[in-house]
């Protein structure tokens, strides 16, 4: 007899639209996207790949601080974000800066976040998002709250959150899904399963065969998608969004993906825990390669177009670094001022003390 968990896992077949060669394998699931929209998706992925390369280089030169590489995860990150509306609210993890950028966070602020400057955490008016969460899982429970709030305000929008495979081991992960399920709130929980939590492989996180099936216990929709296929991720998110705004409750999306780089730029060495074979296996699934083939086959993408995007990205990154450089340096007095609505007397005293220190 099959174990129940195996029977459940079988129901979570990986949803795919484009195979590794960029061929459509699931015609009926093809989204209705115009050529311009398809090109926009590619543009964003190419741009984000360049941003990742430049961020790594800037980090090595000491011109950026904390940085969690994103190459390999573009389809998961940007395919899901592309399915959102401006009113939707993003609760990202530390690796999910690209979604914030495409949701409206100016690039120079992303750099300030990396440098550890509070201005990097200030969302511009109309950008519905929290700054990237450092505590694994915390954003999951908060998402249930954002979604319940939207529901109470009769908004036709959703709360979407991101964590990794490791994040699914936190209690907060279950609590968030379970609350959103219990309240039938408009929430989307995305797990970017990039196979590792720092060095720990996903097999060590759980006995479950898929992460998507964790939706079953919470009584919500769950789907596993090919996270290297931007169209599949887009469609899965779009459908989850539609269900959510139509009052049909939350969805858990597991996107199978891979981070090509180290966990962060602070000393992680992936060769200690991953084989080159595994790296190669995943690089063959690359989201940009496959989508490029698909677009070229359609005759709507060329090397020239891609180079234009690359040049534009480099130029904008350069300007954003300048803008970050020109931002006044963060002071301790700024931090003191950001502690309470009204400064208590002991902090007023410390404010004076640090003003004196800073003016020396």
């Amino acid at each position, binding site marked *: 007899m099959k174990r129940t968990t195996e029977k459940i896992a079988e129901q979570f077949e990986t949803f795919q639209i484009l195979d590794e060669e960029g061929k459509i394998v699931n015609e009926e699931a093809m989204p209705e996207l115009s050529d311009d929209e398809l090109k926009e998706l590619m543009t964003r992925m190419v741009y984000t790949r360049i941003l990742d390369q430049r961020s790594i280089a800037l980090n090595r030169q000491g011109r950026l*601080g904390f940085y969690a590489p994103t190459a390999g995860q573009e389809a998961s990150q940007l395919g899901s974000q592309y399915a959102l509306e401006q009113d939707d609210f993003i609760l990202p993890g530390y690796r999910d800066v690209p979604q914030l950028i495409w949701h409206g966070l100016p690039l120079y602020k992303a750099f300030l976040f990396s440098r*550890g400057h509070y201005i990097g955490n200030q969302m511009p008016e109309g950008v519905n998002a929290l700054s990237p969460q450092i505590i694994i899982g915390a954003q999951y429970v908060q998402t249930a709250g954002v979604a319940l709030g939207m529901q109470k305000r009769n908004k036709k929008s959703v709360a979407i959150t991101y964590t990794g495979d*490791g994040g699914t081991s*936190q*209690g907060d992960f279950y609590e968030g899904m379970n609350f959103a399920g219990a309240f039938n709130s408009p929430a989307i929980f995305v797990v970017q399963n990039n196979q590792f939590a720092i060095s720990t492989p996903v097999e060590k996180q759980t006995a479950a065969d898929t992460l998507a099936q964790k939706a079953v216990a919470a009584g919500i929709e769950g789907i596993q998608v090919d996270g290297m296929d931007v169209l599949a991720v887009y469609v899965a998110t779009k459908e989850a969004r539609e269900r959510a705004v139509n009052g049909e409750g939350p969805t858990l999306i597991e996107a199978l993906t891979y981070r090509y780089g180290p966990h962060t730029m602070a000393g992680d060495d992936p060769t*200690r825990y991953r084989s080159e074979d595994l790296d190669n296996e995943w690089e063959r699934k690359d989201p940009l390669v496959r989508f490029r083939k698909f677009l070229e086959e359609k005759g709507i993408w060329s090397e020239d177009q891609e180079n234009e995007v690359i040049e534009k990205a480099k130029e904008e990154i350069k300007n954003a670094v300048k803008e970050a450089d020109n931002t006044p340096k*963060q002071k301790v007095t700024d*931090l003191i001022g950001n502690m309470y609505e009204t400064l208590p007397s002991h902090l007023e005293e410390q404010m004076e003390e640090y003003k004196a220190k*800073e003016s020396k």
Partner: protein
Amino acid sequence: MAQMTMIQAITDALRTELKNDENVLVFGEDVGQNGGVFRATEGLQAEFGEDRVFDTPLAESGIGGLAIGLSTQGFRPVPEIQFFGFVYEVMDSISGQMARMRYRSGNTMHAPVTIRSPFGGGVHTPEMHADSLEGLMAQQPGLKVVIPSNPYDAKGLLISSIRDNDPVIFLEHMKLYRSFRDEVPEEAYEVELGKAKVAREGNDVTLIAYGAMVQASVKAAEELEKDGVSAEVVDLRTISPLDIDTIVESVKKTGRVVVVQEAQRQAGIASQIVAEIQERAILHLEAPVLRVAAPDTVYAFTQAEEVWLPNHNDIVEKVNDVINF
């Protein structure tokens, strides 16, 4: 004897106790094959096997609960919390559960758990990694809280912590991990918990510190010496329970005190020490006891951390205040 950094001394202590007692188990996030994100458990899984040194799923509350459960089966768990800023995730296991095990069971059970965790500022980590949260731990009766300031003490204190039958929170300042080397004996040795050390003798003023602030205090003392001020530095080593005797003895000798902590000023270890001193030695004091501490904000986002963190100049300044009182 070998020259070791503090992190090497910590690995050495873990190896010593894994060898010495088959009930010792080392576990946490990425501590196995990867040897921990700081390499504190480097090579231990290869040497002792996955049975004794293993990765857990990513959940601090799970790690804490696992440790308590394992201790009921006669094990001596030495879990790692990857960064102490994540302690909030495991607060109930620590303060609500393991600290009360002996008490709740009417002294019939105990939780010989040693939680190791890196903390401390100045190494450009993202938010929630560098906070000094030892005050939260010290507020909880039933726990011991240990913070070494050098490689020699780190090894001896960690061995004592693992052998101790009550739960110990063992906090490792990240800035000290690789900043200098010490002579560290190869054999097993203990440094007694709850005992402070006079790190530098002096007659005019007492500096009381722990963790990375011991270095800053010694540096301040060296500078003060040039101005003819002789400063004694007391390294607490254990912040709960406090070694009141050593503190009071030094205070009686110098009559002037500055207490130094990297943590924010409010409700910290320094406040506790100041209270103990004024209750026990007020007639020996020539000046009010002053504190050096960080301002009362959340730990600084990295770009301002150098100004935010207390340093030797702040200490010299306060010493001059108590000298010139």
